[in-house]
């Protein structure tokens, strides 16, 4: 019987397209404190950290998480810098806790005063490697666009189907006070298709934000005297094919990333795909939602465009997606947006989401990564640990 491990505290700072009156560390430490407070815990309870150290200072050679030990003023028995966010960090933390290396882990990250002003060229972190990818002017959105293009060519997935996903997600962001794009919209499929083409076939409104802010969550096996209902990590893991964004994206080679992982994580979680009530899918493009419904087995390969049509993926539908507004309209903090999707899943399962609450949500799925990213990660969370 696996020891239950739960997310017991979550916190997000203000999120905005640009935050220029603060620093990454000021926001990350705010999120760190806030998540502990949400859990009813304090720094003295923390013995594990997976968090960025954006500087100033810190080590160039060793994991950034190490610098947190000095900052927190207490010895840590576990750190991880594989990817200090989202389902990856969650899986790492759960493993460490079950292994007895630590008991209470904080996962935190964010950015501020780091992006060029809106209207300037794209964020530096979307341009990778310069020999075989960057030299061609390819960015991360372009790489995701190439996967969408091939899927459209092979299966007839339509621009309208992709735009419908984008409109659904953005209309969720519209009613989320935490979202960068709060109050923007509402959006129709035509609004999305009328937005400028950025890198075909992806229109502007089908692509992720870049934004600033911070977020943190607390994971622990200490379930006594908690402030809020613990949300259990039922299963989590990753599938890795390559380092990110360095290879020409070929759908036949990497388009199925996540298929094997999904089977493994659902089995570990003792859940079937029909048990998931709410989906926080990684959405660097709206097309990626279509791909993930296929790869996780909700429909056959090539049928995802049809699967997402109509109200199925809306808040009142049978498969509600990206209830916080996703990467399209909630936030994108270089990597910590992966943690923010876990936070939204936790808040859905706690019943804290107000107008965007999925009624009766008991199990949630969170994903990160995608074909050009070279990795894909999943976490399944639930109100019941068994």
């Amino acid at each position, binding site marked *: 019987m696996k020891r239950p491990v739960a997310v017991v505290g979550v916190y997000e700072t203000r999120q905005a397209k640009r935050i220029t009156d603060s620093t990454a560390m000021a926001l990350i430490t705010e999120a760190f404190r806030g998540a502990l407070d949400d859990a009813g815990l304090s720094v003295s309870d923390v013995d594990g950290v997976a968090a960025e150290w954006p500087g100033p200072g810190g080590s160039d050679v060793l994991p950034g998480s190490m610098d947190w030990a000095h900052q927190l003023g207490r010895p840590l028995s576990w750190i991880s810098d594989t990817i200090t966010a989202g389902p990856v960090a969650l899986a790492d933390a759960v493993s460490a806790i079950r292994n007895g290396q630590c008991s209470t882990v904080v996962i935190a990250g964010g950015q501020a005063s780091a992006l060029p002003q809106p209207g300037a*060229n*794209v964020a530096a972190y*979307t*341009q990778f490697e*310069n*020999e*075989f*990818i*960057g*030299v*061609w*002017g*390819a*960015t991360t959105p*372009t790489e995701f*666009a*190439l*996967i969408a*293009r*091939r899927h459209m*060519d092979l299966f007839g997935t339509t621009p309208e189907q992709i735009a419908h996903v984008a409109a659904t997600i953005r209309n969720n962001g519209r009613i989320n006070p935490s979202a960068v794009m709060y109050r923007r919209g509402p959006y129709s499929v035509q609004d999305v298709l009328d937005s*400028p*083409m*950025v*890198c*075909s*076939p*992806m229109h502007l409104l089908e692509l992720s934000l870049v934004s600033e802010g911070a977020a943190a969550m607390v994971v622990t096996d200490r379930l006594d005297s908690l402030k809020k209902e613990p949300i259990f990590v039922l299963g989590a893991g990753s599938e890795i094919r390559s380092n990110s964004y*360095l*290879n*020409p*994206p*070929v*759908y036949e080679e990497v388009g199925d990333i996540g298929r094997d992982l999904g089977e493994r994580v659902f089995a570990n979680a003792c859940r079937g795909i029909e048990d998931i009530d709410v989906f926080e899918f990684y959405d660097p493009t709206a097309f990626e939602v279509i791909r993930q419904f296929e790869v996780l087995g909700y429909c056959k390969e090539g049928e995802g465009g049809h699967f997402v049509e109509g109200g199925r993926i809306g808040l009142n539908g049978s498969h509600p997606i990206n209830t916080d507004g996703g990467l399209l309209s909630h936030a994108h903090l270089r990597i910590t947006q992966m943690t923010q999707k876990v936070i939204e899943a936790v808040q859905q399962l706690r019943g804290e989401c107000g107008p965007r609450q999925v009624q009766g949500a008991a199990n949630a799925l969170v994903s990160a990564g995608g074909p050009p990213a070279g990795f894909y990660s999943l976490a399944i969370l639930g109100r019941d640990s068994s």
Partner: protein
Amino acid sequence: MTAPEWDFDVDEWKQGRLHPVPTDLTQPYWQGLRDDKLLVQRCRSCKQYIFRPEFACTKCFAPDPEWVESSGAGILYAFSIVHRPPRPGMRTPFVVGVVELAEGWHMMTNIVGCDPDEVYSSMPVVLRTADVGDVVLPLFERAASV
């Protein structure tokens, strides 16, 4: 006749683009392009083509892949027309393409020499090298009709 604005402009490239930095591993590829050849690694054991260059076969892990010459001909497997310049000075629209070479492997490139709106999936393409000073780049253009 090719409209000049769809062709490759070396001066524009120099101001806008990320410049490739060859490594010891990739040096044969870049030297091959200087000789107007597209070289690619192939496993000595299982004959799998390997791109991007690696230290061992990515299919069977055999050591020391050999460098062989590609035909430089293939089809446009997928493309994306980029309308928003990622870096200041880059002229748009331009076409990012993934080419499937006749030998069965894939590489990324820019498709030049035609209006981006004329590009289509499975379009036959052929290598066209461009000397930009520090390196010679492997661009691709629409293959002439037979």
